[in-house]
């Protein structure tokens, strides 16, 4: 039986018509998955959001803290917070489609409590990274 030669080195591919560069989140494979990887991927993230996640990942590796980012009275705030001490949020002013993830328990994607503008749908779990614009209690 002939086996085609593998050609996986990076080369140009057919454009899929997407407007921007995107990174596609990968969810944990459910333990009961039997066939393939359907449903394994989330909605594509714009590079600006990914940049924040990349730098927070680096921060976590360095100091074991989590970085949170939010708007405090209209001013962007970015700070490291020890895991388990991330405050909850009462209000949220973002139109938020960002993905939340929890470095302490990355197998479980966190439902984003900020469905749209208006009050947060619930407290953001301790240790998670929020790239949306929330107002701290």
């Amino acid at each position: 039986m002939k086996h085609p030669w593998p050609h996986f080195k990076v080369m140009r591919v057919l454009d899929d018509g997407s407007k921007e560069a995107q990174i596609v989140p990968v969810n944990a494979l459910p333990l009961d998955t039997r066939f393939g990887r359907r449903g394994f991927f989330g909605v594509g993230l714009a590079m600006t959001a990914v940049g924040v996640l990349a730098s927070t990942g680096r921060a976590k590796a360095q100091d074991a803290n989590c970085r949170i980012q939010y708007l405090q009275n209209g001013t962007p705030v970015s700070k490291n917070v020890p895991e388990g001490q991330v405050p909850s949020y009462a209000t949220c002013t973002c139109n938020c489609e960002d993905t939340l993830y929890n470095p302490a328990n990355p197998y479980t994607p966190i439902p984003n409590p900020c469905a749209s503008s208006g009050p947060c749908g619930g407290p953001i779990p301790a240790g998670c990274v929020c790239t949306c614009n929330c107002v701290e209690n």
Partner: protein
Amino acid sequence: MADPDELAGSTLSKEIFSIPIEDGHYLIYAPLRRSAFVTNAKVVNFLADVGEGIYDRAIDPDGSLIDFLRELQIVDGGVEELPVHAFEGTPAPTAVTLFLTTACNLRCTYCYASAGDTPAKFMDLAVAKRGIDFVAENAVRQNRPQFEITFHGGGEPTVNWKTMTAAMDYATAKATQLGLGLRATSATNGVLTDSQIDWIVGNLSAVSLSFDGLPSIQDRHRPTTTGKGSSDRVMHTMRRFDQAGFRYGLRMTVTADQIARLPESVEFICANFAVERIKVEPAYQLGRWSEAPTAETSAFIEAYRAAHAKTESYGRKLSYSAVRLDTLTSHFCGITQDSFCLSPDGNVSACYENFSEDNKWANVFFYGQPDDETGGYRFDMQKLENLRRQTVNHKPYCQGCFAKWHCAGDCHHKALNVSGTDKFSGSDRCHITREITKDQILARIAQAGGVFWHDAGRQGSYQPTEGKEGLE
């Protein structure tokens, strides 16, 4: 953010792969950077352009994409050291594998060695002693803290019990005499007496035990010489090992007719035994199984995924020999690393599957013989150099494959059987390897937070692989 004017000299990692996956996405994987993420076609084309020295500002107007790629060391990551290590000179091994016999107390349907169908050979103690002396003295010369001895097939090593125990006594005395440590391991089919189990627990560091899971499968494919099932005996051995806290790994073989039951088999093992590591392989189409239907199929991949999920839920590890995401190497096994195995007649083979001088590819894998003048061995350096060259960096077929630094070109012996020459041209195992490797990369991304994976602490470098498949 990156200054576009500074990007003209950006360099793309040479070892970077774009793997089409589900839903029109691409998995970008840089194995030597330990980096991966999933993306769309825009980014793939952006990367291809960077590789050509072109920076497409329209795709990355604020420089955040190039910043991200630098963060992952995919762009401007510095020198990319290939994990290639070539052995040279006269071999001076510090580990010996003794193929104690071609005889066996089982008649497994799929036996690669056709054990029991060929004239039985038994190793004499003198053969074992010479091998032990050779590696122990090499260890002293190299200031190594220990030497190693492994007992292996073609047949069941414990069938040559007298030589096995005497060789172990001799090796222990030798280690004491030279002030060295000794690591001793064995493969076994687990059909043992209680006194043999006691001896193994008391003398060996670990064993690789062959067991196929559900008793009905074990009895169907691994019967005794009289045709009886072997599951009771083997499970008794495993229970004794568990009671003693003895370290052992399982080696499962899956035939085409049993693929669908692999998850059930794995669950049976996890629920009833304490073994932590299970290695599963599709049955090799060698020996008694050379004409049987192949198990190297997509069905195996699906069954492996389901079985893997079962083992994870029990906190155990399931593996397949060619998928090793944490290993970056040019060597699949010991054949390229001067593996030193002695046949029952005392000649030197590099391959566990070439245990006797009358094997089909013996002229390729047997590279040495006893030297009565020195008491050591004479090596055929031409044959040895040919074996040393069977690393993945010398396999043109593999150069475009994202899994190459993990599988390292897979098993040379199986490739010879598939292609009939040493010009490797792929095998059905390659598909299995790529799919499971992909799974593992995606799982790493998910575990790292779901956006990207970058293990900056473990960049590409030479990492030796064990020559003793199943004895990790």
